[in-house]
C-alpha cells in the first residue's frame, strides 16, 4: 500500500527524519530550512518520533554538538541554509575530519550579500572542499528518498563522513508535490541500528578523538579522508540499488535522461533538472536529439560515469547556480576536468543566482547555443 501525500520538500525531509528517528538533532533555525525542523519538532511533540532536539545558539554550535553526539554513539541529524552554513563551515571541516556520520539537510539559499533568502547553490559550493558528501534533490520525492538513504551512506564503514541532502530553497523546500512515503517499519529496517566501527566515546575503551596532527601525520589523515569520500561513490550506488528494491525508485550518483543518442546535452543540479526534462521532451518531439545529465552527487564527483554518459554528445552546456568570481564556476570546472581530452564542445552558463527564474524558453536558448554566459541576467546577449 503506497502512502502518497501532498508535501513540501521540507515536510518530506521531516517525514524521512521521523521514520529514521535519530537520537539527537542539534539545530538552529534559518529560512528556508526552518519548515524542515518546524515540521519535525511538531511530529516529535505529537509523539511520532523520540529524537532529542538540542536548541543551540548558533549553527557553529549546532554542528559542534552534532559531532559530539555522533561520536558519543547517537545517530545525529541537523539542517541549515546559506548564512547558517557559512557560520557552520569551520566545524563542517572538523566533522568530516573526525569522520562523524552526521546527516544534514541543506535548504540551498544564496549567500549574502546582498542579503537574499532565495535559492542558489553558493552555500553548497562554499564547503565544496570540506570533505562532506553532497547530494542534490530534484524534487520533494527526491529529497525524501535521499534523506532515507543518507544515514546508510554516512555510516558505512568505508565512508564515515557527513552527508548533506541539498534541496533548492523555496522551489523544493516550500513547494507542495506528491511524495510517496515508505512504510515506517521498512525505513527503520532499511537504516538499521546506529553502530559505529570507529572509536566512539566510551569510558571503558578510552580514546582521544580529533587529535593534533603535526606535519608528520596531517597529510596522511587528509589522504585517508579523501579515500573515504572516493569510496562513497560505490557505497551510494549500493545503497541506491537496495533502496530501489524497496521503493522502485532509483537515485544514484547521476541520472542520464534521454542521453543515449543525444548530440546536445545539458548538465544540471537540483530542481532545474525537472524544467530541463520538460524541454528535452519538447525538443525530442521536434526531432532534436537533446538530453539531460542530472548530477545527484556533486561530492564525490562521478567523473568517469559523467564522461561515459556524455560520450557521443557533440556539445554540452553546464548550468552553474553559483559563480566563481575571477575563475571558472564550480560545476563547469569539474566538467572541464572530467571531459579533458574529449573533443566535445563545452559551454558554461551561470543562472538562477538569488532565486532568478529559469523558464523553458531560457533552456531552449541554452540548447540552441544561443544563450549568454549569464542566463537570465538583464542586458546580457549571447557573444556569438
Amino acid at each position: 500500500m503506497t502512502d502518497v501525500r501532498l508535501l513540501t520538500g521540507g515536510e518530506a525531509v521531516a517525514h524521512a527524519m521521523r521514520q529514521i528517528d535519530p537520537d539527537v538533532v542539534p539545530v538552529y533555525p534559518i529560512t528556508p530550512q526552518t519548515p524542515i525542523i518546524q515540521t519535525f519538532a511538531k511530529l516529535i511533540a505529537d509523539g511520532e518520533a523520540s529524537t532529542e532536539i538540542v536548541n543551540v545558539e548558533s549553527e557553529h554550535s549546532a554542528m559542534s554538538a552534532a559531532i559530539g553526539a555522533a561520536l558519543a554513539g547517537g545517530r545525529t541529524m541537523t539542517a541549515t541554509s546559506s548564512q547558517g552554513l557559512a557560520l557552520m563551515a569551520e566545524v563542517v571541516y572538523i566533522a568530516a575530519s573526525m569522520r562523524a556520520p552526521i546527516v544534514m539537510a541543506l535548504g540551498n539559499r544564496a549567500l549574502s550579500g546582498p542579503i537574499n533568502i532565495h535559492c542558489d547553490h553558493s552555500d553548497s559550493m562554499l564547503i565544496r572542499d570540506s570533505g562532506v558528501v553532497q547530494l542534490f534533490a530534484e524534487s520533494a520525492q527526491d529529497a525524501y528518498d535521499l534523506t532515507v538513504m543518507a544515514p546508510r551512506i554516512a555510516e558505512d564503514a568505508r565512508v564515515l563522513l557527513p552527508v548533506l541532502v541539498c534541496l533548492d530553497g523555496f522551489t523544493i523546500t516550500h513547494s507542495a508535490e506528491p511524495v510517496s512515503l515508505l512504510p515506517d517499519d521498512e525505513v527503520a529496517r532499511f537504516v538499521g541500528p546506529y553502530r559505529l566501527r570507529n572509536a566512539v566515546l566510551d569510558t571503558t575503551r578510552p580514546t582521544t578523538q580529533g587529535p593534533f596532527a603535526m606535519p608528520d601525520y596531517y597529510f596522511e589523515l587528509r589522504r585517508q579522508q579523501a579515500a573515504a569520500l572516493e569510496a562513497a561513490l560505490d557505497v551510494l550506488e549500493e545503497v541506491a540499488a537496495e533502496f530501489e528494491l524497496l521503493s522502485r525508485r532509483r537515485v544514484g550518483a547521476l541520472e542520464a535522461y534521454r542521453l543515449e543518442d543525444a548530440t546536445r546535452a545539458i548538465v544540471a543540479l537540483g530542481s532545474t533538472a525537472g524544467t530541463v526534462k520538460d524541454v528535452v521532451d519538447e525538443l525530442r518531439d521536434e526531432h532534436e536529439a537533446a538530453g539531460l545529465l542530472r548530477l545527484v552527487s556533486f561530492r564525490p564527483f562521478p567523473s568517469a560515469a559523467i564522461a561515459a554518459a556524455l560520450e557521443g554528445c557533440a556539445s554540452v552546456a553546464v548550468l552553474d547556480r553559483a559563480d566563481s568570481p575571477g575563475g571558472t564556476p564550480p560545476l563547469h570546472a569539474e566538467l572541464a576536468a572530467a571531459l579533458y581530452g574529449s573533443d566535445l564542445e563545452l559551454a558554461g552558463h551561470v543562472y538562477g543566482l538569488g532565486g532568478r527564474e529559469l523558464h523553458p524558453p531560457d533552456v531552449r536558448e541554452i540548447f540552441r547555443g544561443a544563450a549568454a554566459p549569464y542566463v537570465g541576467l538583464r542586458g546580457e546577449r549571447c557573444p556569438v
Partner: protein
Amino acid sequence: MAELSTWESLPIAGAVRPSGAPRTKTGGWRTGEKPAVDVSLCVNCLLCWLYCPDSAVTLSGETFTGFDLEYCKGCGICADVCPVAAIEMVPE
C-alpha cells in the same frame, strides 16, 4: 625514532588509544627545579593533584604520596596552588 604509519594503516580519523600512544617520559623537560614536599604540613586537599598538567602527582587511594619525576616538567604550579606552602621548588 619509530617508523611512521602510512595513511591506510592509521586508525580512522587518527583516533588515539592509550595502548597505541608512545609513553614519552617528559621528566627530562625539567630545567633545574623539581618539587619537594614537607608531608608534615600537607592537609591532603589534593589541589596539586587537580592542577598538575602532567598527572605527575601520585596518590595512594585518595591520599597524597608525592611526585612522579619521570613525568614532572617542573612547572611549579603545585607549589603555587598549595594552600599551606608544603610544596617548594628546589634545585635538582
